[in-house]
């Protein structure tokens, strides 16, 4: 059996808008991946704990509240602290252009804004699992 790609889709922070997260979850499912969706209002600690227990290859974070500069790097830092720095992290949501280089520097490997083709996101997670 070929190894399945497992991805955690998570919503850190306090906004309740998860349409985007669900659309991405569905696209990854249709691409043959196993997607664990953890629901709204997760702390970075919750997300990292879930990622470790589920043994995912990558995490997709969605945040529309504007708190991404605190929450996304927080997840990367915690992963490293738990010895799971090999899990790839990507982010999406309403992210101002000027924040993207800073997020990448903080270890977020890709940032997908509104209008990103789903095929691009699927391809990213495929590569992430290699």
């Amino acid at each position, binding site marked *: *059996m*070929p*190894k*399945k790609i*497992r991805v955690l889709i998570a919503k850190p922070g306090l906004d309740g808008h998860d349409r985007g997260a669900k659309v991405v*979850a*569905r696209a*990854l*499912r*249709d*691409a*043959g*991946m*196993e*997607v*664990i*969706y*953890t*629901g709204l209002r*997760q*702390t970075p*600690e*919750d997300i990292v*704990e*879930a990622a*470790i*227990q*589920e*043994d995912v290859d990558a995490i997709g974070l969605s945040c529309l509240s504007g708190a991404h500069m605190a929450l996304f790097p927080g997840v990367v830092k915690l992963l490293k602290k*738990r*010895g*799971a720095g090999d899990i790839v992290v990507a982010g999406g949501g309403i992210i101002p252009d000027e924040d993207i280089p800073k997020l990448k520097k903080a270890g977020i490997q890709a940032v997908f804004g509104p209008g990103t083709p789903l095929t691009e996101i699927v391809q990213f997670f495929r590569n992430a699992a290699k």
Partner: protein
Amino acid sequence: MKLVEQVLKGDKRAVAKLISMVEDDDPGATEALASVYPKTGKAHVVGFTGPPGVGKSSLINRLVREFRSRGKKVGVVAVDPTSPFTGGAVLGDRIRMADTGTDPGVFIRSMATRGHAGGLALATFDAVKVLDAFGMDIVFVETVGAGQSEVEVASRAHTTVVVQMPQSGDAVQVLKAGILEIGDVYVVNKTDLGGADVMATNLQFMMDEKEGWRAPVAKTSALEGKGIPELADAIERHHKHLRSGPLWERRESDRARKELLESMRRLLAETFSEKGAGEAFESNVKSIVARRIDPRTAAANLLHDLPRSG
């Protein structure tokens, strides 16, 4: 084996990696499971089944908290379906189990069926073994939302909890064979919807005493957190009931028998799968096509000619 040592030392990441190896049928999985096996047998394995949307995940979420407050370490394996078309899956049981957060005494693993029928994945009970060896006192197994016939969990768990909800059919639904015969504990969840008493009475009416145990019917509202301690009591009572007599040993034997047969079936199938089939197999295939022999006789002959083990 390093991974197994880490599991026994309590490393959650190692536990997760080992479960993945089993799921992916990694070549090292058999050996790893073999070295984990002697450390298993302590956990009380509780299966949950019932139709989709009755609140199995939410109930488990509440029960995890309840058993944590009773000092038990809790593992969960939650199964959701794999798409037969794409092989993908969205595993959403964790959404309802978010109360657990980062509690070190809890380990939750979502699992896709990957084509296995019966409401479980092939690797489900191997994952249970890993959690058992990891030191969990109680392990909950949540089946995919099962219909009326997914009963496999009952032959593998010590205690089977069947979850129903009010307003989901009359007394005749309860009379039908299948899922309503396998429960050791029944739950009518969503009492907040009203009509739970009727459902519970219908269920109670169906229960006979079997091996000194009459399955209780608990009424809960996972939403409001009502009836949870009583349900936990019922699960613990059943555990004590099994442990106090010969039943525990008998269930363990039944389970071992089933697992041995299943493993033999898998091994046989693998022995004769495309890569290792060999000449005798292929010549039998030709004979079956040419109607010189029938498939059953050919199978019996091939098995008879297998080299004896040991």
